């Protein structure tokens, strides 16, 4: 058991941290306030080879492992939840499935531009009336000649309004339940019958677009089917195993960012003649932050390492995601408290981490669903 990161991973983490501190942190609040998707940041991330970290070099990726990807995601989360979320959705949900399940031709056409960061990707599973019960979907894809025709609405789709490709889950065989779901690659620029209906105003994460999208008689060629018909649900489960690790990593980053803000404030702010960190009440809050973050990070790194070793990570990734998302919210809430009145103002970062962290307990499987997954893994 080696808890030391490999040197290559450390160098990558340090470089990404430096980039985040210099280039992202100074604008993190502005883009949130302006509700602006920072395209220029993603161009810079592409220049640094960050958009396809866990994708093979053959298709323009970095050829890194899940642990390396988790480290990069954590660093992004440490400065900006919005950028971290768009990044994680792009990589885990929109890019990795094409590498895992696509044909060579599909990889060449659809994987490469994602992995090199030419554009961002999205994936569309959730619907207005189908959230935790994700397989109970209404979006249909009917085969007509050499085309599929997609009809339906997808809800809370990260990046949909800025994406170059969207992986859409739709029912191809209504009687077959889990086995009746398939995945399609939709080109939001070129395909007719696709429309972004809404970009949601949210409690936080407003620099990361969250959309309602609608397919009306959207006709796509049959070579846009990812894998085989009926494999959509199995693919979803595999995809979410990796996705949970990325949300765990992002959550650890949010917690870390909030913790650092609280720690530095507590050592500088003086009351009753000494730094407030010298008072047990405040010190204990900061200590608890450290404990929770370290626990969540260890779970995340363990799950990422298991993923890289080819082990099943259903259990460990659910534990990591569940634990880290709660850590992020709790730490961010306490960070607001440590900063007191200042913590409640938008001049200071903790409130932003607090609002961003809440989504981590909801997206890519709520905490309730994570407990369901873990319970099943325990045979309960």
């Amino acid at each position, binding site marked *: 058991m080696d808890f030391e990161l490999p*040197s*290559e991973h*450390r*160098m*990558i983490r340090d*470089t*990404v941290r*430096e*980039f985040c501190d210099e280039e992202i942190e100074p604008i993190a609040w502005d883009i949130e306030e302006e509700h602006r998707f920072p395209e220029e940041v993603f161009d810079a991330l592409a*220049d*640094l*080879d*960050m958009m396809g*970290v866990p994708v093979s070099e053959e298709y323009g990726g*970095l*050829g*890194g492992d899940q642990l390396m990807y988790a480290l*990069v995601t954590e660093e992004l989360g440490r400065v900006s939840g919005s950028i971290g979320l768009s990044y994680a959705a792009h990589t885990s949900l929109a890019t990795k499935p094409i590498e895992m399940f696509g044909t060579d031709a599909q990889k060449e056409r659809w994987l490469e531009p994602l992995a090199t960061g030419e554009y961002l990707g999205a994936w569309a599973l959730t619907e207005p009336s189908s959230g935790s019960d994700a397989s109970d979907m209404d979006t249909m894809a009917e085969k007509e000649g050499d085309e599929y025709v997609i009809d339906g609405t997808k809800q809370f789709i990260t990046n949909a309004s800025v994406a170059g490709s969207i992986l859409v889950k739709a029912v191809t065989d209504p009687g077959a339940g889990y086995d009746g779901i398939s995945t399609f690659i939709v080109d939001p620029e070129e395909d007719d019958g696709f429309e972004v209906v809404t970009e949601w105003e949210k409690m936080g994460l407003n620099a990361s677009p969250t959309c309602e999208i609608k397919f009306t008689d959207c006709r796509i060629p049959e070579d846009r089917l990812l894998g085989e018909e009926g494999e959509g649900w199995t693919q979803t489960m595999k995809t979410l195993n990796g996705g949970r690790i990325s949300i765990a990593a992002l959550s650890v980053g949010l917690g870390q960012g909030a913790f650092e803000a609280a720690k530095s404030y507590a050592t500088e702010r003086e009351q009753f003649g000494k730094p407030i960190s010298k008072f047990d009440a405040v010190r204990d809050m900061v200590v608890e932050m450290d404990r929770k973050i370290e626990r969540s990070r260890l779970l995340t790194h363990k799950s990422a390492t298991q993923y890289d070793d080819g082990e099943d990570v259903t259990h460990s990734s659910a534990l990591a995601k569940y634990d880290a998302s709660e850590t992020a919210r709790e730490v961010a809430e306490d960070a607001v408290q440590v900063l007191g009145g200042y913590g409640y103002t938008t001049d200071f970062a903790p409130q932003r981490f607090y609002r961003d962290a809440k989504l981590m307990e909801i997206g890519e499987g709520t905490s309730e669903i994570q407990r369901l997954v873990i319970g099943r893994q325990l045979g309960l």
Partner: protein
Amino acid sequence: MKILVTVKEVAEAEDDFEIDGLDIDERYLEYDLNEWDDYAVEEAVTIAEDGDDVEVVSVTIGPERAEETVRMALAKGVDRAIRVWDDDLESADMLDVGTKADILAAVVEEEDPDLVFSGVQANDDGFGATGVALAEVVDMEWGAVVNDLDLDAEGGVAHVHRELEGGVEELTDIELPAVLTIQTGINEPRYASLRGIRQAQRKPLDVQGLGDLGLDASVLESAVSRTAMFEPESESDVTVFEGGAEEEAGQLADLLRDKGVVEG
């Protein structure tokens, strides 16, 4: 053409630290590439990218820990690196400018570069002398505190701007081979790309001891030794002037007279 860039891993102390004997307690130190050297690396790598057949070699004197730092230079485009270290260096109390210049001179003899870049100074001990001392030992032309460089590789001349005191700049031509000490601001150092970092793991990084360079422990002998380490006491005081511009000017004048800044 070959450019040798000397780089150093420097210690940075946290804001609050404790002193342990003749040094800052290790617990409060973090290590990173010297800021000036980052600009020197960037300058060399840019010349290599813009020119034909330019090899950039980096050299550092430092323990195994420094390997990550020198690999960062490799990640930014340096072709290969040399790290000088052995047990004798490990047991030395300190390496003074003369020692470093002698060691780096041995590397220069071995590599025979057309240009040597070093940072103006290191931001830990800050002697600011190694580059020029090296030029003296290897008998090369030199230019210190270079903040603009226009290299004429074919003509064998470096047209440089040197930063002098008081915002004055000297424009001068330096014949190659030469040692230039690079000032911050001469360029904008890049971030290493992640692919660059991955490739850097496979680039050659040679470790050489004093013996490999034809030197022995006598190079470590030094007339300089560290005798004490202390934090200088500093005082700060604030005076707030209030009133109209004329009144404030009067108050400032009084203060300057009181403090002895101006007479009368």
